């Protein structure tokens, strides 16, 4: 019984971690139709920047904020100066973002070296939580809480504000949105910055669990893809449900059939693509 409680908590915690990763990817993909393959790199860069910030300000949350801002600026530059020039050229954008991700990986290797660097868990959260016979890392529960709060904030932003309405309009029909005077161009940059910031901050908040190491980018990008494809492109709810679904499938799958870890992770995505190409909550695009 305790075992299943721990695994359930595990699946929630992993879901939370995945949502922090995938929310930004979903936003960018949804509005701009850009499969931003630098997303894993932004996540890794965030983790590394966080490592450096933590040397000067020993506070993880502050590091996440600063790291998020740094990555937002970096993302903004990519969007303004590189992707903008390739507007409408989907293949070009995919290749360029892939190229940038290689460059970021090499940059990180040169600056931070090739060894894994731990991101220290905040001192207050280092002890595992013990309730009854269940022992669970406190920090993971905090990550889960952060993911839920982030989801609520993003939901309010998207569904209850004017900007959110404009973004949704852009997702639904970009040309029409332009025609009615929505500044889609500025919106693009803003959304890209927001998505990058989420990835960067996610990298630092996930740091105490994942650490910062070369290859983190390539480990995380497929997960973001799976979540977004499963949940549905451009849908925040989809990203949220997709994250926790993947978290649960992965956790219980590897617990029951440890030899088939990868099959379990990717099979749902294939099934969904085959039978519901827009994903579980994808909008019908015009």
């Amino acid at each position, binding site marked *: 019984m305790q*075992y299943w409680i*721990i*695994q359930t908590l*595990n*699946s929630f*915690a*992993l879901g939370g*971690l995945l949502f922090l990763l995938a929310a930004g990817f979903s936003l960018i993909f949804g509005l701009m139709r850009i499969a931003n393959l630098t997303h894993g790199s932004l996540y890794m860069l965030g983790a590394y920047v966080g490592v450096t910030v933590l040397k000067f300000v020993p506070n993880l949350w502050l590091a996440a904020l600063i790291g998020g801002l740094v990555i937002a600026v970096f993302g903004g530059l990519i969007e303004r100066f590189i992707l903008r020039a390739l507007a409408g050229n989907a293949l070009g954008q995919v290749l360029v973002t892939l190229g940038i991700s290689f460059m970021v*990986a*090499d940059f990180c*290797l040169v600056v931070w*070296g*090739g*060894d*894994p*660097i*731990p991101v220290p*868990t905040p001192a207050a959260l280092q*002890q*595992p939580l*013990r309730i009854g016979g269940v*022992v*669970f*890392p406190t*920090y*993971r529960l905090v990550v889960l809480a952060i993911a839920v709060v982030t989801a609520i904030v993003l939901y309010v932003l998207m569904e209850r504000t004017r900007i959110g309405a404009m973004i949704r309009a852009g997702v639904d029909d970009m040309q029409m949105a332009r025609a009615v005077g929505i500044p889609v161009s500025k919106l693009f940059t803003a959304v890209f910055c927001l998505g990058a910031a989420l990835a960067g901050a996610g990298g630092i908040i996930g740091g105490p*669990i*994942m*650490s910062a*190491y*070369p*290859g983190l980018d*390539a*480990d*995380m990008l497929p*997960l973001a893809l799976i979540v977004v494809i499963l949940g549905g492109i451009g849908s925040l709810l989809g990203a949220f449900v997709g994250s926790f679904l993947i978290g649960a499938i*992965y*956790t219980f799958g*590897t*617990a029951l059939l*440890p*030899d088939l*870890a*990868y099959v379990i992770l990717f099979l749902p995505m294939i099934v969904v693509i085959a039978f519901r190409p827009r994903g579980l909550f994808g909008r019908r695009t015009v």
Partner: protein
Amino acid sequence: MTFNRRRFIQAAGAGVSASALPSFVLAQSSPIRLGLMTVKTGPLASGGIDMERALVQYLKERDSTMAGRKVELFVGDSGGVPAQSRTKLQELVERDKIQIMIGPLDTASALASDDYIRQQQLLTLSVAAAEDMTQRKPNPWFTRGTSTSSQCAMPLADYCAKTLKYKRMITIADDIAYGHEMCAGFQRVFEDAGGKIVQKLFSPLTVPDYGTYIAQLKTNVDGIFLGFAGSNGFRFFRQFNEYGLRGKVAVVGGMTAFDEAVLRNMGDEALGIVTSCWYSAEIENATNKRFVANFRVDWGYDPGFYAAATYVEAAVLDATLQKLRGKIEDKEAFMKTVRAIKVDTARGPVGFDHLGNVVGNIYIRKVERKDGRLVNRVIHTYPNVSQFWTYKEAEFLKNPVYSRDWPPAKNLES
């Protein structure tokens, strides 16, 4: 007739051609072309860069000279991608005309280059641990001065069973050949010594999170063997502590799990962990002390597995060339000599078996704090361990290669 320099050279040339050895003289004067096949980009770069640093240091310490001949170093970066490794190797051989290769770093790259090495008859001093390259499918041009995957795991299993008196253990490793081979060797020796492996887990190389695996671990065991490579052992162990398991289940590690390269980013949580490897920066011999001291001056950290690997291979090359008086051109003679050589290196005395794999000391080490940093102190030495451990070679080779399913795990508890 005045005897000027030109005349002298003419006369000398005539004398040499008379003795029918012109190529010999030419070879003696030209530098030896040494290739290093390593990884400088991607996830394996940390070890790969250490390999280059240590090799450059070895050459620097000897003024780039081995057996009186200059050595020129050419470095190829495979990125850890087997296909790229093959291409880069081809470049090293066909453009840079290397005469001998140290590397490649990883097993997959070594396997991808196997055919080419045979075809080119390229002298190879390898670091990659794949068992069968020196067992059931030996490559005649391949010599390995480090160890096979299981060569260090088998003595550790012996140590766990006989000295630590463990009875029940778990193994967990990356789900790749290296992890399978290591765990299989560990299991075989541990169970032959009366122990039981009650749980055996393999996690994908790029697993996002070890939480689900850690939650599965049995706690009614004496110890857990970690067969991870690179950053995975580091991440697993951090999460292991996060789940409050440290102190409940003892941890022992394979040759790459708590390497010096990883230790320098760890804290007190690693203290007391026992691992086995063919090397430790703490080995007490003059060669190693000089190696570690110089490496620390240049780079500010202790050399680990990968740095020691090229430093040891370079020493093997050096000793072989001394015996051959620098004549690397005769490949057959080189292979014969290298496999018969006995040389004192940073890891201690090194020799080879007829399949080209090292016979050397394996060290049981314990993580301790010294001068403020974590080190792998040697607590026990298994001298002259072969890739077959204490098993008979013929019997060992009759069995299938160590794998996920062989030897079968009979004591698993669900």
